[in-house]
């Protein structure tokens, strides 16, 4: 179990994160979600002992990071964003080397490396130098290396960063299978909203502050409309239409038809508690402001919608 209580990190005069509070249970996959600069990396740096923290703020497997970081390190594995492997060494040598840092027996590590190579579908690459592997393969080697010492939980810092969509999906499939097969707890940072759906819980942070900590389903459930929204497709979205939409938003909110209108994209999303009522009233309101629309559909709310709703800001993916 990982317990983070009211974590604040200050570097120099700058406060990087403040009031972060969450508990990760054994076997869970927890995603730390936030736009660039939100504080994800800071939290990872604290969890991996790179940044110091005051006593009792971070407890990993019963070990207080402030006073017993070495014991805590013994039970977690770390997968960095940029693999950080010895490229001139083989997959096997990397596993043996990093696993050896945890005092694991070489014979055990050798056997473990073979099993992990099969799990990550790189059995035939075990004796290949890492430099010869593709980006996706290196990521898998990196994950395997982090699992060599049978950690209770693994911290993954943007593991899919820089990978193509197919490889990203493949890696997540693998992470899920590892989680299920070995009951490994995972803490994953990501700036891909679609990946957040793989997580059991999400810690949403923005500008160094914790916004929410809940399951993706319940986060979406916090939106008005119980996970549903109305999506309007406009004919065009120029300044004139934008101005008209602004009038529509004011009107819809004042008449309690909508609680929030997201008009940042080509499609306009209207969040409201009473979907049937809104579907009948929205066309009238649009007509009143003199605006036509192409189509209107009821759609499922997304995590991005939840993020916008919870933070009042748009989520910008880095890649």
């Amino acid at each position, binding site marked *: 179990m990982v317990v983070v209580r009211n974590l604040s990190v200050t570097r120099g005069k700058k406060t990087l994160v403040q009031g972060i509070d969450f508990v990760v249970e054994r076997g869970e996959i927890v995603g730390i979600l936030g736009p660039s600069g939100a504080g994800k990396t800071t939290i990872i740096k604290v969890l*991996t*002992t*790179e940044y110091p923290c005051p006593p009792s703020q971070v407890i990993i497997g019963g070990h207080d990071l402030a006073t017993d970081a*070495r014991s805590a*390190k*013994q039970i977690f594995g*770390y997968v*960095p964003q*940029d693999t*950080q*492997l*010895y*490229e001139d060494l083989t997959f096997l040598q990397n596993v043996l080397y*990093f696993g050896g*840092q*945890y*005092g694991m027996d070489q014979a055990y590590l050798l056997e473990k490396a073979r099993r992990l190579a099969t799990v990550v579908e790189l059995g035939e690459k075990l004796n290949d130098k890492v430099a010869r592997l593709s980006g996706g393969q290196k990521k898998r080697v990196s994950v395997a290396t982090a699992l060599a010492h049978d950690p209770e939980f693994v911290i993954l810092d943007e593991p899919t960063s820089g990978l193509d969509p197919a490889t990203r999906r493949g890696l997540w499939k693998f992470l899920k299978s590892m989680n299920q097969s070995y009951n490994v707890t995972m803490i994953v940072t990501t700036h891909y909203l679609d990946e957040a759906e793989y997580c059991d819980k999400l810690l949403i942070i923005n500008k160094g502050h914790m916004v929410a900590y809940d399951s993706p389903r319940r986060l979406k459930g916090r939106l008005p409309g119980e996970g549903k929204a109305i999506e309007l497709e406009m004919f065009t979205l120029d300044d004139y239409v934008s101005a008209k939409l602004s009038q529509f938003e004011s009107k819809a909110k004042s008449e309690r038809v909508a609680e929030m209108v997201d008009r940042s994209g080509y499609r306009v999303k209207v969040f409201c508690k009473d979907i049937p009522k809104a579907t009948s009233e929205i066309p009238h309101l649009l007509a009143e402001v003199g605006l036509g629309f192409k189509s209107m559909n009821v759609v499922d709310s997304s995590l991005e919608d939840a993020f916008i709703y919870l933070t009042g800001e748009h989520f910008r993916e880095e890649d």
Partner: protein
Amino acid sequence: MRIFRNELDVISSDKKTLAIFLLGPIIVMVAFGGATIQTEELITINVAIVDEDHSPLSNSLVAKFEQSEYMMVKYKTDRATAEQLFREGEIDGIVVIQRGFDSKVRTFYLYGSESEKARLDLIVDNSYFIAPVAVPLALQPVMIDFYLKDVPKILNLPTGEISPEMIKQLVTRLEVVYINVDLAYGDDISFFSIIFPLMTPIVLFVFGIFMCGLSIVGERIRGTLPRLLKTPIRRSEIVLGKLLVYLIIALWDSGIVILLATLIFRLPVKGGALPLFATLYLTTFTGCTWGMFYSTFAKSERQVSDLQTYTMVLVMVLGGVIFPVSVMPDIVQSLAKVLPISHSLNAIRAVTIKGLGPEIYAGDLGYMLLFGLIMLGLALVSFRLIKD
């Protein structure tokens, strides 16, 4: 122009590299200038004077030696002490004014060349290639001046009364005093045997720096250090683990240098191969720990490379390779003695050509060990303080 500005921005944003670029030449030039600022003659050597006569003429001769530009009278002492200082490498030569010097010189001046000659013993360190040339060279002007000015003055002889024939004898053949030159440590020392103690410490020390200088920096460049630091391993274990590899390589380096030097180049190892091995190994050890220290804080290969270059020049200047440490000002000599190179040089000379016992070089070996351990301590502290 864009490339120029970009390169300027890159360099100025890296404060450490910029500091190395700007301060490196200053440090080297200060060391170089400081080492030579008081030196007009590169063949100045250190001697001890043993005056066994204690007479007006011997006192006058000692005073003449002290005024000489070519030799530095570091000690005026008895013969036993002088020989001990000579063995310890503190001086490059001993000038012994034999008992009866005064009376024999007086007799010569009064009765001519048929009388028994006064004797001056000259013991010269033949393992130090400058000394056998420098000591007699330094002696010549001193003696001529002594014969022509000091002696007549002390004997109350008008200079005009010295016959032209005597002047000829004095100046050309120097027959007043018999100078007995004793080349200590043998007169058949090869050039290789003289160069070996000068070059080997530099080579092994710098090689040690080169080996270890990139060890931790390499982890930084590869990007593997942050990952390594997130395992339970201690920072001190990283430093010591890496150093151990290079210390094992240093065993080979030290051993192979001795083998090649003795078997192919016929280096005499009069003091025994084991002490020589210990000396070479400790020299490499100091280089390794120094390099490891650099590696703990340098952020790039470029920084290490620049530091290595400046260090190499610095130790060559202060290590007595380009010119002897003995000609440097006292403060620079003290600085030179802080570096392990001069101690290595002393010990290698003592073990190879001189064949002296451990009592002479044990202090040098102990110092090198201490120096290496201090540098290792600095490396450990530095790596602990650096944020990675």
